[in-house]
């Protein structure tokens, strides 16, 4: 009898590890692009930290995976159905249980906030209801991006540009160039927001050329290493809140 129980337990264990392997495979194929191959984060948040504003229990993970996170870049993966979904949920859950709260981010976030002011980041970015809507909203950038990604965004802003912040350059018939963030473009027209936050609207047959901006509209920041750490620590601390995305949405700002 005892032997039988042991055998059953062994069977259950091996089934579980098989499921975890299936979950890992699903993760690599579907999630690694944003969350990194080991879940350490990138364009998407680090999943190895135990904390998450969306919760790390199975029900929360299931909801986030299938429905996505409104207002963020996390899409819903509605194609996932049982039993593959459970495999994936259990794998993602196993990522955070391996960690004791994630790696600490070095740096002085209070000094980072000072650097944010002194470098005039708010000329283009917005935190809560403060700043500009020209560049990406940073209200919860710490919840949505890994520290490594934030660091790269400061030093090499062109490494990853969200499609909605793609710059576009319109060359008018007289040679004048107008650049800005592309609001919309189709076969016959382009709409952009220029650096003064004004909408500029063009019909393609009335201009010389429409091109994607080859680089990010944000300049690279070559800060001393300590300042870079501090600024990253500050950005990583931005976890959103009532004055964040909700405010923007209420104001009708994309």
């Amino acid at each position, binding site marked *: 009898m005892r032997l039988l129980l042991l055998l059953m337990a062994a069977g259950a264990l091996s089934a579980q590890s098989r499921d975890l392997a*299936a979950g890992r*495979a699903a993760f690599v*194929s579907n999630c690694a692009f944003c969350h990194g191959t080991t879940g350490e984060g990138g364009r998407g948040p680090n999943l190895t930290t135990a904390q998450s504003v969306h919760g790390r229990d199975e029900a929360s993970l299931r909801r986030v995976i299938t429905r996505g996170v409104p207002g963020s870049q996390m899409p819903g993966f509605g194609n996932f159905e049982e*039993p*593959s979904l459970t495999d994936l949920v259990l794998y993602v859950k196993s990522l955070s249980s391996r960690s004791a709260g994630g790696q600490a981010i070095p740096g002085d976030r209070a000094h980072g906030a000072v650097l944010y002011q002194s470098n005039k980041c708010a000329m283009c970015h917005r935190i809560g209801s403060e700043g500009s809507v020209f560049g990406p909203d940073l209200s919860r950038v710490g919840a949505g991006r890994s520290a490594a990604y934030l660091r790269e965004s400061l030093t090499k802003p062109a490494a990853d540009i969200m499609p909605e912040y793609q710059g576009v350059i319109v060359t008018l018939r007289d040679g004048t160039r107008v650049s800005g963030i592309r609001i919309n473009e*189709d076969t016959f027209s382009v709409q952009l927001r220029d650096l003064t936050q004004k909408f500029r609207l063009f019909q393609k047959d009335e201009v010389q050329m429409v091109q994607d901006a080859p680089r990010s509209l944000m300049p690279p920041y070559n800060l001393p290493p300590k300042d870079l750490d501090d600024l990253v620590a500050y950005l990583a601390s931005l976890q959103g809140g009532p004055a964040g995305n909700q405010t923007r949405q209420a104001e009708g700002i994309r």
Partner: protein
Amino acid sequence: MKPVFPALLLAASALAQNSPYPVDVPAARIVKALDEPQNWLTYFGDYKGVRHRALNQVNTANVKNLRVDWIFQIPTTGRFETVPLVVDGVMFFTAQNGHAFSVDARSGRQLWHYQYKPAEGTADGLNRGLAILNDRLYMGTVDGHLVCLDSTNGQLLWNTEVASAKAGYSITLAPLAVKDKIIVGVGGGEFGIRGFIDAYDAKSGQRAWRLYTIPEKGEPGGDTWQADSWKRGGAPTWMTGTYDPELDTVYWGVGNPGPDLYGQDRLGDNLYSCSVVAIDPGTGKMKWHYQFSPHDTHDWDANETPMLLDLPWKGQIRKLLVQANRNAFFYVLDRTNGEFLMAKSYARQSWLKEFDAKGRPVPLPNTEPSEQGTRLCPGLAGGANWMAPSYNPDLQLFYVPYREQCDIYFSTPPKFVEGKAYWGTATRGVSDEKEWGVVKALDPLTGEGKWEFKFYHAGWGGTMSTTGGLVFAGDADGYLVALDAKSGELLWKLQTGSEIATAPITYMVNGKQYVTIASGAALITLSLP
């Protein structure tokens, strides 16, 4: 009391002469559908699938004046992919979620409305159109039924279950009426179905035959499936086929094997997935098949229009079947026997090394989807897809709308549960690579491109050609455009306000030519002032 009766009688008699009802479309009329260009009698407008009309009232000189004549708003949401039928001044069309309508083709004013009611669950989902035979209409439903409606009042005459929705089957296509039968195919290639093509007696709704597109063990082709993978191998038949009355043969495209992106549990060619099959419509027996993509793992199905053309091939008129396949190649086959004559890529492709003498593709190495992702062109959605091509016989040009895009293909083993998604993972767009849409004019004998028109986004709009020297096409951003059929030059455009995911039609009533397109929740009809 004033003597109103004579006037009324006069009006009634004028109405009777003009009256569109009852319409009558016997099979013989459909055979000669191209001889009545004022009407649009099948999903493609005729049996060959050319989507070309001998109407030139709207032409290259005056198309700039084309404007909206009427709009019909449907009372439902979702993607509006219908292609209407027009018979002697009356228009019949479906909308997604089980709706069918009849309207006056000159005004868009409604004659009747039918709403399908499923026995249980929901019938919400898209629909691409109707078939008409005699005075009856036929509509597939997303819960796997085929219904027959009285064209005079939209009353339900019969309702037959084709396949179980619980097992993952659905019907989105417009049925095909051939002689006394209604032929339908099924969707569900992503849900572990076993595909088939069915024929039903048009009068009674009784099933006449079923041709499975996956043979069982022991049948010819049964050995192209590993173990019992044939039972859930997909091979759906979700787009309408074409018909050659002289050869009395129906041609039908067959979809991808399942799971879509994971092939290790279904080793073998997986017949008759990703093939075109030639069928005797009387018996449902297969006459021949040609497989475009053996053992497909990229969802490159073959449900694109199998267009029938009779053209001089190396000096001799031959009965050809041409298809711009989802795998980025344009194919020419002999439709009497399925012989491969030639294929040429019309879009970017990075998977094929060469074709062998019999037309079997030899793929390049490292083109299989993988756990880490494999970049490949075309993308999962094609290339071509359900977006209708068209053909201008005077210019001998084939117009194909397609998506110019590549994807990263991922693959992991899925678990099978009846009626649930059975994909084997998915694809992702390649970041930092532009995707765009194209309408390309090809010489159908060589596959050489003559011109192309680019859309900014890759879309789902189809084409339609006329003797007015025009090709109409729709795009992902909602533009309906008219292009010069010879040069591809833009001659006219209309922003319809919503993505166009179907193809336009044209027809004529009382000497006036109209063009109709579905977009958003609107069926938009245009004419000259």
